[in-house]
């Protein structure tokens, strides 16, 4: 559009840029203020944090030291709770991948009779609002004798993660050409060999996206964790953070520090796998 050498400065461009900034700056502030506030508390001594300073007079890492040395009543099980969160998130990721990949392969490649119906029923899970399903789920886990057991949270999160996982993986595997399977059958491959040697390698990018999605979902979950687990040594980090509020004089600077530590892994994982996530997870969204 620009004429060569016409002008590198035009009032119209400046006006457009200014209007964009007028949107961009509020968006930036809106997004960052709660996160910055959390970070500010993490690096502030208690007096600075509670006096509404926008930057502490004496920034310190002392809060982190207290958390990592478990030197507070609320933090005495920090490491074991961090470990619980990790084990549960990884288990949910692995189990969701196994269950959803098998189901997607079965529906999309093997064309199992009734496969589409199963997928539609599975997606129906998302029409039950999460907090509504949580109530009977709590009682069900009690009936199965799984309350206060990590398996209850793992299975609940797998239930919630799987339908979306199956749907995304099915969309992705529908795009693989049928000729691949036919050629493999010609060469005498068994169904299991096709699954292992043809299907899994081709599906890798989607599998990474789904695995990451399930891990993040489980790591970030609060409601189900809070209902299903209650012993101090069984709970996950978010539940422990919620328990901070039980006291009248909660140590908010330690709460925010622990929260900051808890929020870092998912943010890091998200940004590390962003390439896969955005493409893989929104692929089906605009089809209709």
């Amino acid at each position, binding site marked *: 559009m620009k004429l060569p050498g016409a002008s590198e400065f035009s009032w119209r461009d400046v006006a457009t840029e200014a209007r*964009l900034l007028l*949107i*961009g700056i509020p*968006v*930036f502030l*809106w997004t*960052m203020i*709660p*996160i910055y*506030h*959390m970070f500010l*508390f993490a690096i502030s001594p208690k007096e600075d944090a509670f*006096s*509404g300073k*926008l930057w502490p007079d004496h920034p310190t890492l002392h809060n982190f030291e207290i958390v990592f040395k478990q030197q507070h009543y609320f933090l005495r099980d920090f490491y074991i709770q961090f470990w619980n969160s990790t084990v549960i998130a990884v288990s949910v990721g692995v189990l969701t991948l*196994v*269950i*959803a990949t*098998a*189901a997607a392969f*079965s*529906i999309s490649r*093997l064309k*199992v009779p009734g*496969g589409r119906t199963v997928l539609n029923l599975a997606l129906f*899970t*998302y*029409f*039950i*609002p*999460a*907090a*509504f*399903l949580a*109530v009977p*789920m*709590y*009682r*069900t886990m009690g009936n199965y004798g799984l309350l206060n057991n990590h398996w209850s949270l793992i*299975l609940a999160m797998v*239930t919630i993660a799987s339908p979306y996982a199956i749907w995304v993986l099915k969309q992705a595997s529908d795009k693989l050409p049928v000729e691949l399977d036919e050629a493999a059958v010609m060469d005498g491959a068994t*169904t299991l060999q096709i699954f292992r040697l043809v299907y899994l390698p081709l599906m890798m990018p989607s599998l990474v996206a789904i695995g990451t999605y399930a891990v993040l979902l489980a790591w970030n979950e*609060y*409601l189900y964790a809070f*209902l299903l687990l209650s012993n101090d040594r069984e709970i996950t980090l*978010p539940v422990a*953070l*919620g328990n901070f509020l039980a006291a009248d004089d909660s140590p908010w600077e330690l709460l*925010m520090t622990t*929260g*900051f530590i*808890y929020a870092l892994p*998912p*943010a890091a994982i*998200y*940004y590390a796998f*962003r390439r896969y996530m955005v493409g893989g997870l*929104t692929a089906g*969204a605009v089809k*209709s």
Partner: protein
Amino acid sequence: MAITLSGDQSIPAPPLSPRLTPAQAWGIALLAPYLLVFLAFVVYPVCYGLWLARAPSNYVALYHDPIFARAAVNTLIFLVIGINIKMLIALFLSGFFAQQRTWIKWLSVIFILPWAVPSIPTILSVRFMFNPEWGVVNHLIFSFTGDDGPNWLNDPTVALTMAIGVHIWKSLPFWTLILITGRLAIAQDLFEAAEVDGASWWQKFRYITWPSMQTLYITCTLLSMIWTLGDFNSVYLLTGGGPADLTHVLATLGIRYLRLDQLSLAMASIVCAMPFVLPLVYFMMKRLSR
């Protein structure tokens, strides 16, 4: 078939169905784990929950509980006002983020943070910002005006508005991302042609953007409403349902009954939410099956 009953062990059992190929057998075997999960953790809890909620006395009790009526109204406000504001902002921002600028690309990377980060530390962070005595907001009000700021979360209207704000903060990036994908799918030559014809900003939106995006936009709105019915964190972590249980929504109220060991009342309150859910699901199904 009667012959096999005569005791001849050497005849192999006939296959389950003569048409089942090995591939189909594998198909059923591979689908089975998910089916088990679905039956055990979706179908059984839902049926069991409905069975628990069957007694009419539960509904009488709910009818006489003023917290329930308040929670139902709050839920309606949350959905009808909150979600529509959120989706309109998302629609607007999707246009902003679709601009080709390096700094906007970087901003979009930051913009995702609320969605990527777990809600509990960030919501608690907001909660302390509005703490009447020590929160940064009232400190700033005091240093600028010399007056004490309001006790924000102690006013049910303000507290509910802020819970909606927290919900928007958390889920706006996700919906904006979806709408950006929708916007980028529109053929660019339409806009170029409109540019040549001298179309205004509004005309471009009205005649090109909106017609191509309205299905996606309405689907997203309905889906967001259904999911927001289950949003427990925004209200519970910010206000805990208080002050005086006036900011409960149905999601937190069900859990409140559950914590008070009134499981059948919890289920009954959820059944009462069905008039909200079922029409949404019905419209959703109609849209998706088209």
